[in-house]
């Protein structure tokens, strides 16, 4: 317990420190700013909502982080920095957090942002009547009575949040949660303007009605085409904001988006799979790649409906060993993705990957070992292993699936039947254990290993492969309250490496074409929580 207190205090200290440096502005000396401070970026699809408590997609969350500001923000490295709150204190048993709000935070209509706006927002997020899909996040935060409020057993004001006074917001947790402060950067926890929501109902997020407390206000929204947000003059730190206007253009096709980027219509777009090396050569300043907090794996069906062969750990290991991850990351995806030998990405804060044999071996040794294991398990030329492998329809997933199946075929003589499926059918099929080997991927909800490892907990609703290891469950349970979770997570990964319930393939990278005049893009923020107010554009 003592130790986690220390961590939190140091976070607080860092936060205060960062705030003083930020006050001087985020633009390095000697930089000449461009006259036109408009940042235009491509989004894959229309956002689901800009209502902070309702939004559920990454694209929408990016917009919401600009429009609204929560208690804490993240800096370019993902560390906590003050948002509306200038800091917080926590009681001795780590269950009551008290946030102090700044007195100059304002809504875009000039009203003061008060603790009551947070109380309203948090209660709203848990309210069964709003029925936000992100109610699970409120449960995850372990706020007192969250479960009962969500189930409708208690009124929303029973939720463990309270406005002590206008500038003091207090949260009571049902159990200590080491990463709770990190969670206050998530859009679900942002304040909401009660009077406006009451006045306009469902229409409150329309550009003509919306009132927000972030650095930007929504000024235009043409669904499936564009959304525009412009500087909010009421924002408390408006004088340190540089970008005047942010435009998100919806472009579904990544190749078209790249063409439009090259034509100068965009400042940022994603690089299509396989194109990074060429683009890096042609545009060295523009093509960038950095690790992200997402994994990519194939999961064995270990339930009763799964094939007999996969119940043999030697078969699972053989298949995992024969995957040449270097080819996948360097030649197929080719976007600087890290090779994956663990389920948790190495980029996760405070996570030390275990020293597994597999990671250290050469690919030739791995292949040899794979052949041996498979032969031991009784599969060979006279009795070839054969199974079905499914993935959801997508150009990149197809490439990976084909490459894997060919590696297994050529090295191990395994016959693989590939099947692609439309997304919802895929999810339903995988969720019903109606598969043999299926693609999976997961992006962290917060920057801590449990967000990944919980997937393999036998109780988890996300554990589609139905891997069941009491030892692993026990370690994860222990980690929740432990001061030394990091070591436990390493042990969990050792179990995964030994049992191989999943085949980690690679960890995602953010692979972008980013106009070289865009300054301060937070490449070190593995969650990619970026704020337009921290960016700037250089004159060229």
């Amino acid at each position, binding site marked *: 317990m003592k130790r986690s207190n220390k961590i939190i205090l140091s976070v607080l200290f860092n936060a205060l420190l960062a705030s003083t440096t930020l006050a001087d502005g985020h633009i390095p000396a000697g930089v000449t700013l461009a006259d036109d401070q408009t940042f235009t970026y491509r989004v894959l699809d229309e956002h689901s909502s800009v209502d902070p408590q309702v939004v559920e997609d990454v694209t929408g969350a990016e917009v919401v982080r600009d429009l609204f500001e929560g208690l804490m923000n993240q800096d370019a490295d993902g560390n906590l920095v003050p948002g509306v709150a200038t800091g917080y204190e926590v009681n001795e048993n780590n269950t009551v957090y008290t946030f102090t709000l700044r007195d100059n935070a304002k809504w875009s209509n000039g009203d003061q942002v008060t603790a009551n706006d947070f109380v309203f927002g948090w209660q709203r997020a848990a309210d069964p009547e709003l029925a936000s899909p992100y109610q699970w996040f409120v449960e995850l935060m372990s706020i007192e009575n969250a479960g009962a409020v969500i189930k409708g057993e208690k009124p929303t004001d029973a939720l463990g949040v309270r406005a002590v006074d206008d500038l003091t917001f207090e949260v009571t947790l049902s159990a200590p949660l080491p990463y709770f402060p990190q969670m206050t950067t998530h859009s679900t926890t942002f304040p909401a303007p009660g009077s406006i929501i009451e006045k306009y109902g469902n229409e409150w997020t329309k550009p003509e009605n919306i009132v927000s407390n972030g650095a930007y206000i929504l000024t235009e929204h043409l669904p499936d085409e564009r959304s525009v947000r412009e500087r909010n003059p009421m924002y408390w730190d408006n004088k340190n904001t540089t970008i005047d206007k942010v435009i998100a253009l919806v472009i579904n*096709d990544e*190749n078209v988006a*790249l*063409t439009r980027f090259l034509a100068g219509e965009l400042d940022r777009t994603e690089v*299509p799979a*396989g*194109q990074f*090396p*060429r683009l890096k050569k042609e545009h060295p300043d523009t093509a960038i790649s950095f690790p992200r907090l997402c994994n990519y794996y194939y999961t064995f069906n270990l339930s009763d409906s799964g094939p007999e062969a996969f119940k043999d750990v030697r078969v699972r290991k053989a298949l995992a060993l024969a995957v040449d991850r270097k*080819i996948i990351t*360097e*030649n*197929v995806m080719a976007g600087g993705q890290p090779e994956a030998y663990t389920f948790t990405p190495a980029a996760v804060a405070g996570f030390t990957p275990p020293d597994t044999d597999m990671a250290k071996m050469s690919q030739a040794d791995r292949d040899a070992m794979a052949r041996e294991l498979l032969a031991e398990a009784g599969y060979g030329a006279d009795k070839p292993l054969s199974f079905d492998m499914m993935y959801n*329809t997508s*150009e990149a997933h*197809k*490439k990976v*699936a*084909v*490459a894997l*199946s*060919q590696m297994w075929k*050529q090295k191990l003589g395994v016959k693989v039947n*590939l*099947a*692609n*499926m*439309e997304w919802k*059918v*895929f999810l339903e099929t995988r969720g019903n254990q109606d598969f043999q080997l299926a693609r999976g991927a997961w992006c962290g909800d917060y920057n801590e290993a449990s967000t990944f490892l919980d997937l393999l907990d036998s109780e988890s609703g996300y554990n589609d492969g139905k891997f069941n290891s009491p030892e692993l469950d026990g370690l994860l349970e222990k980690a929740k309250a432990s001061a030394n979770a990091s070591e436990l997570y390493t042990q969990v990964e050792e179990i995964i490496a030994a049992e191989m319930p999943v085949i980690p393939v690679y960890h995602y990278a953010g692979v972008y074409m980013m106009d070289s005049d865009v300054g301060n893009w937070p490449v070190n923020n593995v969650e990619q929580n970026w704020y337009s107010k921290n960016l700037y554009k250089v004159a060229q």
Partner: protein
Amino acid sequence: MRDARDRFFRNKAAIVCMVILALIILFVLLGPQFAKWNNEEIDWAALGDIAVLGVPSIESGHYFGTDPLGRDIYSRTIQATGTSLMVGLIGTAMAMIVGTLWGVLAGYFGGRLDSILMRIVDILLAIPLTLVVILILVVAGRSFVTLFIALGAVSWLTMSRIVRAQTLALKNREFIEAARAGGVSEVMIIFRHILPNLMGVVIVYASLLVPEMIFAESLISFLGLGISEPYTSLGALISEGAGTMAYGTLWQLAFPLFFYIAIVITMFFIGDGLRDALDPKDR
């Protein structure tokens, strides 16, 4: 009938296209004999730098180059052309049979039957194809047969409307009325007089359907019904190639597109020749 054959063989363009179509089929059948790589094998060496090592070359054995995964486009195009030709022809044949019967029945007998049949067409035209395909996938599972059911389910609707309109126009013509007055049975009138006079329009529309079917297949396969990796089709190869056309690997689009265009052209002129040949000129 002999007349028709003579007329068809006098149409030079149609004959040339018949020969081209035969060559394409021959290529599909014999092409694999000359391939150095099969349609699913990945050339791991080429995978490192497709734009350089994946170019079409006799030396590397990739006569048509490789796809973005280092697989041989020559072999893949052969397999895709065979698949797509079959999909196009069988799908179109189904549309011809169902659509023509449906349209003739509605148009010729008219009244309540017409109303029921055509309202069914209206409904089917408006039902979202995606849903229908997903349900076929769920109920019947993935196979070549279900792919054809899905293709057939959508392709005959416009055909039936065209046929019905022509039948409406035909049934009031003097020669039909004369036949009816002469005591010829309705079934006989349909087979002797209506259907032959419809052939022109049906064949022309069918020749348009072949390319449409080829692309409908790639949509259906996208949803998970039909052809799955490592097998492919012209529709899939072309849309893949179209995406990467600006990346210096134009051959990935060019070769499949060449075969597709060849099929479109042959269908055009063979359709034309057949229409000319079968035109009864007795109206």
